């Protein structure tokens, strides 16, 4: 077989030009890559740092050009964000200044601007609304999604694929397209500017996400577990709670985080479907107008405050998010 002889082993290679995990030089490269990625990540976080810093700047520092890196931190932004103030002048101002030692921290800062604190601002309420609405809709969409995902995963529903696609397609709708009809509907139903209305809205929009995510997680749980339980005398519902649920906790945690983040950050509908009672934080933060125009430090402080609940939830569930779904499969 002439062809075989002609193409024998190539001339022996003793040095690889390709770098890979096998050689010790490759490890150095791996470290370099890791450091580069870390640096890039830090660079990506600069806007977050900038925001944190801005929250602590005084009005003057915020608009200074060039931007001040070294400055004197102040809680002015938080004061503006969290309190209702009224301007003092003349005699009232002097009286207040004389009694300065009796005042709390916030009141003293307000006084420095010639103001007196009347009470908490709307922002606290807005934050509370966000929590109620995002929390409520997350619980609703994850629960409904869980049952729907289980059904889609385990049962032969006629038209299953079409239904799933339909559910997914709701996600493709830009808010703007449905805003007007929804607005009219809500007005008609008396759901405009209500907590219930917003929760319903967010639940429906989140369902596509939760159903798809949870179905994926439930698909990975082998059917044999439930079938064994069925054969052993449990009803499907009991098998669902005793067997599927404990193994789906990672998936449920991940889905909860994602739907919460979506509902929490939602801006368009929050702006259009609420005016006062049910208004959530995002529209509130964007429109903080003060005596001198847009209060940047307040906006930054508000954004910071707004971030906290999400960070807490994600941090609390981080192990669930990182851990893959593992099962006690037969080890060979």
């Amino acid at each position, binding site marked *: 077989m002439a062809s075989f002889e002609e193409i024998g082993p*190539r001339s022996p290679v003793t040095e*690889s030009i390709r770098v*890979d995990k096998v050689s010790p030089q490759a490890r150095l490269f791996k470290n370099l890559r890791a450091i580069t990625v870390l640096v890039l990540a830090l660079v990506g976080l600069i806007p977050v740092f900038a925001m944190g810093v801005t929250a602590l700047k005084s009005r003057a520092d915020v608009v200074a050009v060039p931007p001040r890196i070294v400055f004197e931190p102040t809680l002015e932004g938080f004061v503006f964000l969290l309190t209702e103030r009224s301007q003092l002048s003349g005699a009232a101002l002097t009286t207040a200044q004389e009694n300065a030692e009796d005042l709390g921290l916030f009141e003293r800062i307000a006084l420095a601007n010639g103001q007196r604190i009347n009470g908490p601002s709307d922002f606290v309420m807005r934050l509370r609304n966000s929590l109620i609405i995002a929390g409520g809709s997350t619980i609703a969409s994850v629960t409904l999604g869980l049952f729907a995902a289980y059904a889609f995963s385990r049962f032969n529903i006629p038209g299953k694929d079409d239904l799933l696609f339909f559910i997914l397609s709701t996600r493709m709708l830009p808010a703007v397209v449905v805003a007007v009809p929804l607005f009219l509907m809500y007005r008609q139903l008396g759901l405009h500017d209500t907590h219930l209305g917003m929760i319903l809205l967010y639940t429906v929009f989140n369902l596509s996400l939760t159903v798809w995510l949870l179905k994926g997680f439930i698909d990975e749980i082998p059917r044999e577990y439930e079938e064994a339980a069925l054969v052993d005398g449990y009803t499907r519902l009991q098998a669902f709670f005793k067997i599927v649920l404990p193994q789906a906790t990672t998936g449920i945690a991940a889905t909860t985080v994602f739907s919460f983040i979506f509902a929490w950050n939602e801006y368009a509908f929050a702006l259009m479907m609420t005016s006062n009672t049910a208004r959530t934080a995002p529209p509130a933060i964007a429109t903080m107008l003060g005596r001198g125009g847009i209060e940047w430090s307040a906006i930054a402080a508000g954004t910071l405050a707004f971030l906290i609940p999400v960070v807490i939830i994600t941090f609390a569930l981080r192990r669930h998010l990182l851990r893959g779904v593992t099962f006690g499969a037969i080890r060979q």
Partner: protein
Amino acid sequence: MDLTIQNGEFVVLLGPSGCGKTTTLRMISGLESVTQGDIYLDGRKVTWLHPSDRDIAFVFQFFALYPHMTVRQNIAFPLQAEGQPKDMIESRVREVVEMLRLRHLLDARPGKLSGGDKQRVALARALVRRPAAFLMDEPLGALDADFRETMRAEVKRLHISQEATTVYVTHDQIEAMAMSDRIVVMSDAEVQQVGTPAEVYHDPANLFVARFIGSPGMNLVSGQYADGAIHLPGSNRYNVGNGWHTALPRDLGGSSEVIVGFRPEAAHINEDGAIAGEVYAIELLGAYTMLHVNLDNEENEIVHIRSDRQTRYPIGTAVRFDLDPEMVRLFNPQTEMAIRREVTP
């Protein structure tokens, strides 16, 4: 681990899951890094070379065929990756396809093929380059039992016709025995014995090899050595042959604990047999019968005796049997090593 594989040899790395056989194979191929030591191919050091520079071909258990390419493209791929001229690739592919009888599948996609056909394509892809060595990781593991038999003979025939050095990993000791020139028996990351199939079968170096090779493995019964005989469970006595009388006390030191090993075919059912027991289970295997006999009442010492197909005993029957003295092996329970018999001059 120290191992030298000769040119054209078919060496099997054999052991249970987790023993290190696949890791060894992957180190030879370059898919796994070496913590200490070196690997040489034809005298040149390849320890840190990229897999594609080592001139080896790898056959995986789950075929690893490119699903988006046809069979023809799969087989041609390694040569294309090397940049060989087109007519060269075509003639090579044709030869390999004839060798493995794949002509009727050339334009099919791997997704449509049976397991056996997929493995043949994987073999063809490995053969097409004529590498210095073939590395195979349990290639028959994913196939149905009857396919495994035919493919086993086919791989062996290919090896003989190509005179190709092959390193083959498996946990199936039948495959190892049938195909290899030498077997490397491994357990827990250590080499237990290296030898020809006859050597590991008839002269296992330790208890692990004795148990692992053969289906079922060697019967290993614990006993006490005293006065030229071994006392076995169930008040059985086995008189040891001449070659053991000096070797035993020397090897065992002060202890009298010894393990008697014999293969199922070394025992013969006999009404006046030296050893007695009770039938625990019986397996009818078509060409022969395997009797599982309980030596004592605790169901701890069960020995397997191979008998002809006429043998049928209900569970619980009392039986007696003899051992062929040439085929008996003794082991030291402390060291787990085989005791070497004195060879009578």
